[in-house]
């Protein structure tokens, strides 16, 4: 301890001691002090000690159990010089601080996500996504209602896509596996592939195509008008030629984002080319966990 500090501490100790004597002005104590004066030099320490213990035993409002146990002068002096600051207190202080900081950071991130989600919910119609009627791989009708209650992960593409869609679908398969591993409940997450090319992509073509990536993906197709409508709902750029001759060879321009939709069918997040399967899966899991933490309903059958 540096000298000025020690001096300050000494002064503080003295002040506390004086205050303690003055603040407990019982007659007995004063008598005790005057008695002390009568003692010889050699006896004084013992007298002082008995006096100290008397003070401490009377200061019920401020003493702790530890103080009462400290009987010798050495122990008392030690406590007086360090005051209430011990390594334990310092550790507690640092740990509490770190804990609070961590908590606030996590909460802040969660609230930020929540705010973003709420924003896209808006008052009326959601900005991205909405009602649709399409056909699944069995040729049966499939509507947006069937996606509610789960987090859905929607991708638009077409089977004759040269390179981007296959890459993205491989990524989708990895994401599906990661989410499945982490949630231990694959049913609350529903990947969906909607074709932008309904003329060529019939249920049978889609089924064979998607089977190469992941069997958990729901493939959807429909009439030209139905697909045009769903693309509009999801704000997907749609450029499929309407009247194609049989056997005609063409490509379709389309947006290349994954749309994460919450169990209410509202848009939550966009996953793009820049995301890795890992980053995408962690974003999705964050949203799923937020939803669960808020105790909102999820369909798991």
């Amino acid at each position, binding site marked *: 301890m540096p000298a000025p500090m020690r001096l300050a501490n000494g002064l503080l100790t003295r002040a506390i001691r004086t205050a303690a004597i003055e603040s407990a002005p019982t007659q007995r104590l004063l008598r005790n002090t005057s008695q002390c004066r009568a003692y010889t030099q050699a006896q004084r320490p013992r007298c002082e000690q008995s006096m100290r213990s008397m003070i401490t035993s009377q200061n019920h409002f401020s003493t702790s159990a530890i103080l009462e146990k400290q009987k010798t002068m050495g122990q008392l002096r030690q406590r007086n010089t360090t005051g209430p600051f011990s390594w334990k207190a310092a550790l507690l202080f640092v740990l509490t601080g770190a804990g609070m900081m961590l908590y606030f950071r996590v909460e802040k991130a969660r609230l930020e996500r929540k705010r973003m989600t709420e924003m896209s919910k808006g008052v009326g119609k959601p900005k991205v996504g909405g009602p649709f009627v399409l056909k699944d791989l069995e040729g049966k009708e499939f509507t947006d209602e069937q996606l509610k209650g789960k987090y859905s992960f929607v991708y638009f593409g077409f089977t*004759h896509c*040269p390179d981007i869609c296959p890459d993205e679908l491989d990524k989708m398969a990895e994401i599906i596996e990661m989410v499945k591993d982490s949630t231990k409940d694959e049913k609350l997450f529903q990947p969906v592939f909607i074709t932008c090319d309904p003329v*060529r992509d019939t249920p*049978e*073509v889609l089924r064979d195509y998607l089977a190469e990536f992941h069997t958990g993906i729901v493939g959807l197709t429909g009439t030209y008008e139905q697909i045009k409508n769903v693309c509009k709902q999801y704000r997907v750029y749609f450029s499929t030629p309407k009247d194609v001759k049989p056997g005609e*060879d063409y490509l379709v321009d389309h947006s290349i984002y994954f749309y994460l939709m919450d169990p209410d069918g509202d848009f939550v997040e966009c996953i793009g080319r820049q995301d890795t399967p890992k980053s995408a899966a962690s974003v999705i899991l964050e949203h799923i966990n937020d939803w669960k933490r808020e105790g909102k309903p999820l369909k798991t059958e």
Partner: protein
Amino acid sequence: MGWLPWSSGDSSKTTASDGGRIAPDRTSRARCWEGRDLFFACLDKNDILDGIKEDGKARQKCAKEVAEFEEACSKSWVKYFKEKRVMEYNRDKTIERIQKEDADKVKELKSNGWVSK
């Protein structure tokens, strides 16, 4: 020679029973990409960028690669990949140019006594 390798000969293979058109599977996609990479490597070697504008030259210098590329991929894919090559080249050039301009600007500012934070 059909423009789809999976269509050559047997036409029933291109059409699904419900009227859709069967898409290239993983194997044929891989074959197409391989053909593309070999063709582009040949273009690089002969200093050709645009396989559409310099079609004649490309066919002359890389006859074998062109044939294999067009055999393995559909026409629309061939066109798409050729266009993409030019687009990516220009994109990379632009990025390079911007980075160089940035670096020059920083150098100029630093010589005028500016300190970056």
